[in-house]
């Protein structure tokens, strides 16, 4: 629908007083991509998003949109559609007038404005509400108007600042998929900011995990989840077991880590012998077998006692205490063999699922 543009953020830095909010961030977003900035509050994701939109300038670095340097352009010359967390709908205008606002400024002919408004309202399912005022709409409806208003101008870039955080959980889930479908249909390069990692993984082509002004990892949801680049990512996204230890031996593709629970094998992350690491291991990657049963020799293995078992329907959560007080969280899918509280089990996992991450 638009000429999909690529966005290039080059070494952007920003400080407020002595507080470094963005620390030399460099990101390349592909045309038509749905990219999410994910991170806890204060990590700089909203500051970065607003900077791309023209609200605030970096202390150093550049922002390039479709090859054009937009770093110092005011917001009204950047051709970015912005969806605000509070929606920021103009209260004194109808839905139709809100959506037409950007088009009127561009002095498009009236017929074209009318047809575009109708199309875009149709895309978000609000044609019937065109003549209502924002205060007559529900939160979810207001949010859709905000999106419609932003895409009506056919921007090169769509920026969304936690647009779903004011909605209740069920609505959130429904709208996030509609949003994704809409974006795919339009093909606009989109940047989405959220602190909800489940949401990020559900809708994004790629995710940028940020922490305290730094980029921790850029990757697809699968990469972020399954192959975390740093301890922060492993801990922030999803539930993870984190076992502290020291690298004993780093050879080839795997490392041997000395932990309180004994020697554990994990996949390599440029670790060196003697380094302090945390071993990250997803609960669902650990399989349980009754103690004593023989399992494949490859992969990690630890014996322990079941200290907690909670049947949650789709999965059963266990906590298994292995040596020296180390407790592993295990998530077993429905239908797998149940293990009673207090029983001895063997935890085993493929080596690639365990990551030794610098502490």
């Amino acid at each position, binding site marked *: 629908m638009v000429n999909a543009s690529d966005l290039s953020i080059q070494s952007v830095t920003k400080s407020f007083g002595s507080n470094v909010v963005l620390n030399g961030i460099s990101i390349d977003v592909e045309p038509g991509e749905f990219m999410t900035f994910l991170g806890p509050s204060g990590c700089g994701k909203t500051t970065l998003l607003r900077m791309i939109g*023209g609200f605030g300038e970096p202390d150093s670095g550049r922002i390039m949109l479709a090859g054009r340097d937009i770093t110092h352009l005011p917001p*009204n010359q950047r051709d970015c559609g912005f969806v*605000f967390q509070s929606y920021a709908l103009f209260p004194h205008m109808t839905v139709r007038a809100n959506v037409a606002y950007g088009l009127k400024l561009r002095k498009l002919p009236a017929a074209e404005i009318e047809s575009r408004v109708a199309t875009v309202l149709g895309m978000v399912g609000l044609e019937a509400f065109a003549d209502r005022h924002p205060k007559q709409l529900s939160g979810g409806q207001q949010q859709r108007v905000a999106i419609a208003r932003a895409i009506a101008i056919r921007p090169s870039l769509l920026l969304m600042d936690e647009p779903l955080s004011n909605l209740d959980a069920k609505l959130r889930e429904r709208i996030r998929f509609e949003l994704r479908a809409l974006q795919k249909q339009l093909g606009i390069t989109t940047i989405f900011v959220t602190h909800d990692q489940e949401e990020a993984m559900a809708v994004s082509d790629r995710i940028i995990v940020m922490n305290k002004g730094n980029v921790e990892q850029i990757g697809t949801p699968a990469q972020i989840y399954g192959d975390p680049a740093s301890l922060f990512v492993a801990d922030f996204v999803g539930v993870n077991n984190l076992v502290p230890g020291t690298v004993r031996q780093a050879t080839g593709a795997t490392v041997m880590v000395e932990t309180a629970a004994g020697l554990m094998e994990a996949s390599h992350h440029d670790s060196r012998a003697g380094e302090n690491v945390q071993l990250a291991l997803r609960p669902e990657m650990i399989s349980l077998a009754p103690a004593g049963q023989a399992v494949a020799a490859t992969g990690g293995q630890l014996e322990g006692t079941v200290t907690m078992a909670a049947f949650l329907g789709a999965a059963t959560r266990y906590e298994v205490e292995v040596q020296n007080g180390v407790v592993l969280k295990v998530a077993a899918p429905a239908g797998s063999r149940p293990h009673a509280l207090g029983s001895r089990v063997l935890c085993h996992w493929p080596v690639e699922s365990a990551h030794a991450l610098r502490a």
Partner: protein
Amino acid sequence: MRKSGLISRETWLAWLLVAPFTLMLLGLLVAPFLSIFIKSFSGLATFGLPFLGSPEALGDMQPTATHYISILTEPHNQAVILNTLGISAVVATLLMLIGVGTGYYMARHRSLAPTISAIVTYPSLAPAVTIIFGILWFMSPTGPVNHILFQQLEWIDEPLEFTGTFTAIVVGDLALFATLAVRMMASLFEMIDPALEDASASLGATERETFFNVLLPLAAPGLAAVWVFIFIRTMVAYVAALVLGGGAKGVVVLPLEIFTRIQSLGISGTMAQICAFAVVLAAITLAGRALYLFIVRRAFRDRLQGEIL
């Protein structure tokens, strides 16, 4: 709540608590005004007010509307009314514009706002006379304005005639009420979400377009309320006209007219005539207040809940 007869204890208590206030209000404001109102229709030329020391009884009054008619028809009186309305309208409009400029600036620069507010509040702390005299001497032939324009730059041939002009009173009233207007405007603009301006910019609007398309329409009811408020205030303003208006031969406004007539009571004019003027002034003011409340209640319906204005 025990009811003793028809009136509950709570009601007794409440009425008891407000009794001193009500008595003061009735005795010092309502009763005299009632008396003034009645006297304004009297054809008698006596000095006293009914109930308040006038020798004749109520029945002796000769009801007439001549005083009111005289207000509307005599050229001097007409001039007074027009001056008053004109000055009030001009001051209200100017302060509305100034208020928008400064109020918006204060609302979007919160760190500077307290300092600006403190400077602009100064007029309301000092007695009005001081401010007015300050302006008088600022604009006088020996003051800086004339000094620069007349003596140094020689742009004009003689010192600016300041006192006794319409402009002078306007300037005086501006100084007196600027504080009020700016504070009201600042809180008005603080109520408008800054994200709306960002949204407008993101859709391609220049600052001017954002101001006229988004800010003004949203602020409009508040602007109207401030205009009416300042209008009423200026209508009853007295000190500026007294000092800067040039006295009885200069520009006269309604409050000043009343004052002058009071002073010349033994010599010319009747008590009843003064009462008529007083009633006219009070009527316009109260009507203005009603209009103000109407605008505010309608415009901010959702935000105010049981707040006592």
